[in-house]
């Protein structure tokens, strides 16, 4: 389908596609196996300028938006959803600064991110605060010109690898969600440490660790926006980043379809390629149609975000939920088309299913997305929209 991308977007997409094909595809299985962080690809992405596409030109970027970020996340995910996440999670960690950061903060941090010199990471989840972000336990206590952070963040993507961490912590516990604030913490500051690397079902090439703050003293200047804005910063960040997760899911789905079609053409049973059997054809047709529908929704949402629309929570949730559900279904079906071979780790297809699963879970489970969607429907109805 032609989505009428502009010239720069076509260039970005083609460049990301080239990197996925030539650089990521040959090593995806290796990193899935070793569970190491693919720094060699980070280097390629930074040399090719892709880290800067969604950052304004004033800060050394290319002035694109969420749509551009989605195109890259999708293309990279076709080859490896885990390696793509190093890119997408940097965007997630950058959005708080991009959306709410002061001019000084933007000048200080965005150029390095745009050049790919530094990766970013977003820290909100804790052991007892997943979907219920209001129950965050990490605290930030004001102490003169500083804040002192204490607490442990869990399952943080890019943890240990990133240089820049945007962290949600409680400045006033008594106020609940309204007592949360957002901070920028740099790796190397005293009091920031990382827990052990988690062993995961999928996206194994991405780094997932605890981020532990022990009397971590950061300058007052690293507070993003104002005290008490943390929850709003987080919610707006997710509104912007969810299309990215959706695009990752989209790429995983498309990558699985590409493998499935190729395999179906080559695999011969009963004297003919299995692609000539209607049972296979119908599966492939459904997979492709569902993925295309997801793409249309994801792109439309991304463009809506870029247009500066005031409220995108509902659409963002829809895109993330729909695309990740599609990715899960499509990757399971892709394995089915591969039959017994699909179940074997010698073949690349089972990895897609393992990688797809997380997209239904992180940045808000799909159940929470449905809550968001329903809540917005009800609100709109009350307002009589």
């Amino acid at each position, binding site marked *: 389908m032609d989505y009428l991308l502009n*010239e*720069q977007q076509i*260039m*970005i997409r083609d*460049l990301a596609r*080239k*990197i996925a094909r*030539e*650089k990521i595809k040959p090593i995806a299985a290796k990193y899935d196996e070793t569970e190491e962080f693919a720094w060699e690809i980070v280097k*390629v992405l930074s*040399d*090719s*300028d*892709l880290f*800067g*596409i969604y950052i304004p030109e004033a800060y050394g970027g*290319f002035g694109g938006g969420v749509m551009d970020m989605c195109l890259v996340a999708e293309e990279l995910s076709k080859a490896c959803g885990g390696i793509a996440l190093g890119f997408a999670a940097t965007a997630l960690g950058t959005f708080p600064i991009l959306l709410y950061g002061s001019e000084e903060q933007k000048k200080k941090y965005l150029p390095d991110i745009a050049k790919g010199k530094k990766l970013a990471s977003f820290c909100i989840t804790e052991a007892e605060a997943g979907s219920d972000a209001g129950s965050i336990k990490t605290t930030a206590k004001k102490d003169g010109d500083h804040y002192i952070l204490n607490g442990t963040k869990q399952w943080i993507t890019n943890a240990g690898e990133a240089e820049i961490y945007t962290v949600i912590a409680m400045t006033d516990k008594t106020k609940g969600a309204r007592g949360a604030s957002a901070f920028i913490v740099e790796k190397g500051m005293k009091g920031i440490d990382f827990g052990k690397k988690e062993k995961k079902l999928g996206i194994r090439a991405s780094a997932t660790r605890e981020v532990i703050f022990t009397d971590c003293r950061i300058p007052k200047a690293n507070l993003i926006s104002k005290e008490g804005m943390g929850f709003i910063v987080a919610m707006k960040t997710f509104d912007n980043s969810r299309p990215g997760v959706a695009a990752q899911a989209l790429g995983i789905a498309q990558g699985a379809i590409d493998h499935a079609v190729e395999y179906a053409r080559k695999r011969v049973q009963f004297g003919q390629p299995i692609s000539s059997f209607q049972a296979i054809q119908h599966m492939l047709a459904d997979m492709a149609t569902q993925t295309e529908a997801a793409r249309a929704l994801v792109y439309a949402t991304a463009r809506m975000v870029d247009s500066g629309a005031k409220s995108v929570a509902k659409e963002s949730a829809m895109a993330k939920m729909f695309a990740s559900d599609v990715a899960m279904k499509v990757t399971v079906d892709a394995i089915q088309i591969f039959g017994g071979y699909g179940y074997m780790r010698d073949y690349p297809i089972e990895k897609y299913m393992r990688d797809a699963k997380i997209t239904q879970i992180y940045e808000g489970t799909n159940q929470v997305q449905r809550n968001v969607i329903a809540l917005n429907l009800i609100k709109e109805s009350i307002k009589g929209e």
Partner: protein
Amino acid sequence: MNIIVCIKQVPNTTDVKIDPVTNTLIRDGVESVINPFDCYAIEEGVRLKERFGGKVTVVTMGPPQAENALKEAVSLGCDEAILVSDRKFAGSDTWATSYTLSSAIKKIGLFDVILCGKQASDGDTAQVGPGISTHLDIPQVTYVKKIEDISGNKAKVERMTEEGYDVVEAPLPCLFTVVKEINTPRIPSLKGMMKAKSAKIVKWTAEDIKAEPKSLGLDGSPTRVVKIFTPTPRKGGEMLKGDTSDVAKELVELLKDIVI
């Protein structure tokens, strides 16, 4: 340092398929790409610029469509691009091609290093690089796998041989043909691609490069293709079936004469 890289646009042979009925090349939809070996020359040229400063000029002889190859070279870091194109070049063999390219290089004027891929993937001759250096009367080192250093107008390089490599010192200006071992070509940058899009490609004709008409194209080519045919395809042979050990015994028996 002034660096010139010579490239050729070729059909992407990894895409080439044979028509099973007519046994000829299916060219429909076969994409044109920069000769894979020339990609290493481009990369090395850009790296030399990054190491020692200067500029990289990329030049190709070919049809108007070869402009795309030049733009890709610009996206990879080349500064200037020249397309030498003229109907008079049709039918050039390696003699005429190297004469034409050397004439274009003479027009460019100043240069310290000329880089070529070791050969093109369509013709596989490896003759054009040495031909250019001879027409220009400059030294050459072929099959270069490493440019160790350039200083005091001298380059120290490693030339790959069948047994290993030679370490060679060459005075500049010099022509090097490069092999795959020399580097890993980069992916273009977005900035590079944008630059390439608006890059001005210089176009030169036979007249522009002041070439002798009798040395161009078919007339300047000592060799003539007189026949083109598809090789008789190897017949699929015998399939050996049975237990592993039986099959192994049978095969060893069949191969005994060759092996002993």
